């Protein structure tokens, strides 16, 4: 009987120890660094610079933008001390004349059959003042993205994709950049920091190099497009995707396109 009891206790303690120590290592299997070649970019034609044209244009907001909200970082001295200006939300950022920033403008179709190897240069997103800079970033499928922490506090970087592999990694102050890539086209992947839940960003993963994220002037310039007919779309985090616009360009031709989002298209603030 005594032996039975001892056995029961050992079993109970062993099982609990297993529960709190885990059954395996804690190495995060997350990297997509061995990404497959760009989806939608099989070996194919290359763009001839001698005939390539471009599409320029701008993105505007029709109506009054929702007011940016103040982010209270008082509970995190490492964040609040790093700020030289008040931290504000960046859901809708406008410039003069309703120009809309942080909009991804991209070629949705028309480049099929062309081959676009991922660029060797990485794009960079930086955590500084406990916000992401830039707030919206775009990259090509398979292109590396370096995540940098300039803050004197720990962050975790947690993209929440639908079509790519999810990952979540911590980055203490002074740590080396985290290098990642995404293997599938996706617009756009929300990114958050669970340590500082106000930190939000978006990563757009595009199948070709013809995309751009607008600045405060709302302008974009898609270069190196071979002659042809293209469908262009603009995406904004609050307003979503615009209606597609079709544009045809000839050799060395430049066309202008304007996207307009309606402020009333999203719930008011």
């Amino acid at each position, binding site marked *: 009987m005594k032996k039975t009891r001892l056995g029961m206790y050992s079993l*109970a303690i062993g*099982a*609990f120890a297993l*529960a709190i120590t885990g059954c395996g290592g804690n190495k995060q299997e997350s990297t997509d660094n061995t990404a497959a070649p760009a989806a939608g970019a099989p070996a194919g034609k290359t763009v001839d610079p001698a005939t390539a044209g471009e599409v320029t244009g701008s993105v505007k907001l029709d109506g009054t933008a929702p007011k940016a909200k103040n982010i209270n970082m008082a509970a995190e001295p490492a964040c609040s001390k790093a700020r030289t200006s008040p931290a504000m939300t960046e859901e809708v950022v406008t410039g003069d004349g309703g120009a809309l920033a942080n909009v991804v403008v991209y070629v949705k179709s028309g480049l099929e059959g062309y081959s676009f190897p991922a660029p060797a240069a990485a794009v960079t997103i930086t955590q500084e003042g406990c916000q992401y800079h830039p707030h919206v970033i775009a990259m090509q499928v398979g292109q590396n993205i370096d995540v940098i922490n300039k803050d004197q506090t*720990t962050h975790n970087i947690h993209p929440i994709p639908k079509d790519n592999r*999810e990952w*979540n990694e*911590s980055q*203490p102050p002074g740590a080396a950049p985290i290098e990642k890539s995404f293997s599938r086209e996706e617009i756009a992947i929300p990114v958050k920091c669970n340590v500082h839940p106000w930190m939000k960003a978006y990563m757009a993963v595009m199948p070709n190099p013809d995309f751009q994220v607008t600045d405060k002037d709302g302008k974009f310039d898609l270069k190196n497009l071979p002659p042809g007919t293209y469908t262009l779309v603009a995406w904004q985090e609050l307003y979503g995707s615009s209606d597609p616009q079709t544009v045809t360009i000839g050799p060395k031709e430049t066309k202008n396109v304007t996207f307009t989002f309606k402020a009333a298209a999203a719930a008011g603030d």
Partner: protein
Amino acid sequence: MFSVLSLSEFDIENTENRGGTRRDLEPAAKMNAIYNQPLHRYAVFTACCTFVLLIAGALVTSNDAGLSIPDWPLAYGSLTPPMVGGIRYEFTHRVIATCVGLLTIGLAAWLWRAEKRDWMRWLGLAALGGVIAQGILGGMTVRMFQPPPVSAAHATLAQLFFSTVVAIAVFTSSWWNGTFAEIDDPGKPRVRTLVVWTLAAVFLQLILGAAFRHKGFGIIPHLIGAVIVTILIFMTAGALKRRFADVSALRNCARYLHILIGVQLLLGGGAYWSRLYSARFPQPIPAMVALTVVHTVTGALVLAVTLVTALISYRMLKPAHVVVGSASASEQVAH
């Protein structure tokens, strides 16, 4: 809540119940040899710590801090992660969970060693199994990036585990182990039946609430559940008040159920409104966090009080097959 678990309050008055049968009920002090005061106090302490753990868990979810520590079981590869931002909530939750786990090992071992009732010894082991499973589910939520089914299961098992420890606290109390007469339940439906349906509905409602919080379902199922639970609680508490107004234990259960369901409905409305209002504000919004956490843990209290009501009803009231008003077999000792 522990005025509920502090079972001295449930001393039974000499009473004439509304069924018209007068019974001289023995005081709780007359108990059999099963009662073990240190064990009961330890069980109550474990239940209190589990309640604190529920608060800590609700704070993690409401602050969206569940993945602030990307690894598990270690935290940032160590036992002492940097205590900043959401890490404070998540790590504190893990530490309290470990303490509750250790307490549960102690509880299971003590029950196994000291309990004369076989089913109590197995209940202790069930609690231990529950806390182990809960730890594993917690680890899975971290490693699998909080899939709604796993997160909701983690939240649901938390309530089940809490209920188990509360039940152990009741079963080890002097009141439960005392000797007294059973009371007739003259009404229809019987309280024993009503309270079981209410308990099941409350538990289902907690699952729906967890699924809503963890983005598994929308709000509609939880709202429908709230209506059903409210109706059942009012039916149960109403029956207890009408039929057993002179039995303090049952009257107190009815009072606590009425108070808790009222508070919980207000908190639920407040929590949902704060969630809608603050959806586009930079998180965390303290008012939303506070309302949601209090709503969540009040839900656990509703479950605990409903469970205690069910246990007391089953302990005090005659089962349906015993003829109402029968003079036979009215004294019962806990088994």
